[in-house]
């Protein structure tokens, strides 16, 4: 009980410390978005702290002492800001229209309860939560890497398992409730983040409601939400990255690049696909801002800590990824696979089937964008999506496994990871077209009246 209380107090202190940093780095972003950025950065830091405890092979009590020291250190600097923050005069009553996202989350909760399973999908119980159980034992967790079987996937990054293990340690048992609650918290954050990001962007609430509707009304998106896998966490981080990037471009407030770098690089700590996202995002970000040195410097500075964490994991602990390990031993077959035209046809067919079967709303959105704003397809976000899919295609093309099986079991999850970001960037793009059109109409009316 004392352990739980100390951990909880530390989490609250960490949230406040990160809130102070976010308030400094993203001062003009809306309050709800500041709150979400605070939560996202805090859970990432929590995961890093737990990983440090694992590297040092220390029990949870020692980790809590380390955690307390870190919090006391930042409290020394953030104390004046906290006093100001907790002044009751600063409290504001929220907009009554905010009942809509709450209702949406309630609907998602009902879906989650009726369609989710106790232990989640295969990947959740066989991989993510099993890894978490290894991390639950900080002195012997490295035995996770002793399992030579490919299906153990010990090379998977540890953000989700370390968070589950941290909360298991808090409650002092490995209850299945913990991964469920954690998973649900992530699921609830995605639509709320999308809603508040769109609400902050446009005076007309239609766009925010529309974004919310696209997520909540999508059966397959909801189904994947209840899987309890790390894809949901990655989906949240990718969405956050695009929101912060948009804020950076709009506000020109260069400090936001620190947060952007941190969030993008943290994707590598969630899933291996996050590494591809980080590399692609970074390259396109650098190309589009090659004259803007402060952006690049601050982005790199922000990404240093997550990069150190992922490199230390991959270099000193993780075995080689199963795809890379198998491909290294079959170079001639690899060349044959790349030259095989039928594999390309299979890939295209299965991409189309998966898109239409699972994400038909995205297809409609895609067609709508073709009609109203073709410029969208040349903009920052879609270029990142193309390159990510090119990367996935190369992986499928060279896969040592059965091609159809590999696409069938993974492609829908890759789409799921970028789906909220696609909705966000498309609605932002359409919203600005509408704003420009209405501005032109207003100007024409004014000219006629004159």
């Amino acid at each position, binding site marked *: 009980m004392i352990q739980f209380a100390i951990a909880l107090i530390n989490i609250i202190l960490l949230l406040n410390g990160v809130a102070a940093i976010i308030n400094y780095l993203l001062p003009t972003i809306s309050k709800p978005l500041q709150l979400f950025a605070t939560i996202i950065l805090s859970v990432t830091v929590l995961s890093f702290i737990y990983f440090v405890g694992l590297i040092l092979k220390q029990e949870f009590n020692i980790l809590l002492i380390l955690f307390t020291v870190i919090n006391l250190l930042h409290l020394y600097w953030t104390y004046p800001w906290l006093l100001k923050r907790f002044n009751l005069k600063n409290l504001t009553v929220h907009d009554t229209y905010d009942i809509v996202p709450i209702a949406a989350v309630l609907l998602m909760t009902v879906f989650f309860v009726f369609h989710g*399973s*106790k232990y*989640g999908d295969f990947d959740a*119980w066989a991989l993510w939560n099993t890894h978490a159980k290894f991390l639950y034992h900080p002195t012997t967790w490295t035995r996770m890497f002793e399992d030579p079987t490919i299906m153990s996937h010990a090379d998977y990054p540890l953000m989700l398992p370390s968070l589950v293990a941290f909360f298991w340690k808090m409650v002092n048992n490995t209850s299945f409730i913990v991964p*469920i609650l954690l998973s649900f918290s992530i699921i609830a954050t995605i639509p709320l983040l999308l809603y508040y990001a769109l609400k902050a962007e446009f005076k007309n609430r239609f766009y925010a409601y529309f974004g919310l509707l696209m997520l909540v009304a999508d059966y397959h998106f909801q189904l994947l939400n209840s899987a309890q896998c790390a894809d949901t966490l990655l989906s949240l981080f990718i969405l956050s990255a695009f929101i912060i990037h948009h804020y950076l471009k709009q506000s020109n407030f260069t400090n936001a690049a620190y947060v952007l770098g941190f969030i993008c690089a943290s994707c590598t700590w969630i899933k291996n696909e996050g590494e591809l996202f980080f590399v692609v995002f970074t390259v396109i970000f650098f190309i589009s801002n090659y004259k803007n040195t402060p952006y690049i410097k601050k982005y790199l500075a922000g990404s240093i800590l997550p990069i150190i964490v992922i490199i230390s994991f991959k270099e000193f602990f993780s075995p080689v990824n199963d795809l890379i390990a198998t491909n290294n031993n079959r170079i001639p077959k690899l060349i044959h696979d790349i030259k095989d035209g039928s594999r390309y046809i299979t890939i295209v067919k299965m991409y189309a089937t998966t898109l239409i079967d699972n994400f038909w709303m995205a297809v409609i959105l895609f067609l709508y964008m073709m009609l109203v704003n073709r410029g969208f397809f040349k903009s920052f976000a879609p270029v990142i999506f193309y390159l990510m899919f090119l990367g996935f295609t190369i992986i499928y093309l060279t896969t040592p496994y059965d091609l159809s099986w590999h696409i069938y079991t993974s492609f829908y999850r890759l789409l799921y990871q970028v789906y909220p970001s696609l909705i966000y960037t498309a609605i932002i793009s359409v919203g600005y077209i509408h704003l420009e059109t209405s501005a032109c109409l207003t100007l024409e009316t004014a000219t006629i009246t004159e």
Partner: protein
Amino acid sequence: MLNKISFGIDQIDAEVKPVQKYMLPDTHIGFDTTINDYALYLEIKSIITPQQFLFNKNFDTLLVVQFKDKKPRQFPNYRLISKNEDKDLIVSLITRLK
């Protein structure tokens, strides 16, 4: 529903838990089953996660899961440490005779 049980985890859990307390912390434990199902190994691993449990039949100590509707396998050079069974399964922890 959240109480939906995928892959019979709770059944396996109830069967393995009584046997698990006999697994010594510093010994490697192998796995053997009558259906040779890798998913079953992952399922048991997800329940117990003993840090020394591996898909390997060559260790001195083995966790054996036998399905009653399949022909049971014999382990003549082993002695039984612990056994637990229900209407479908027999879960045994056995160790090689010295």
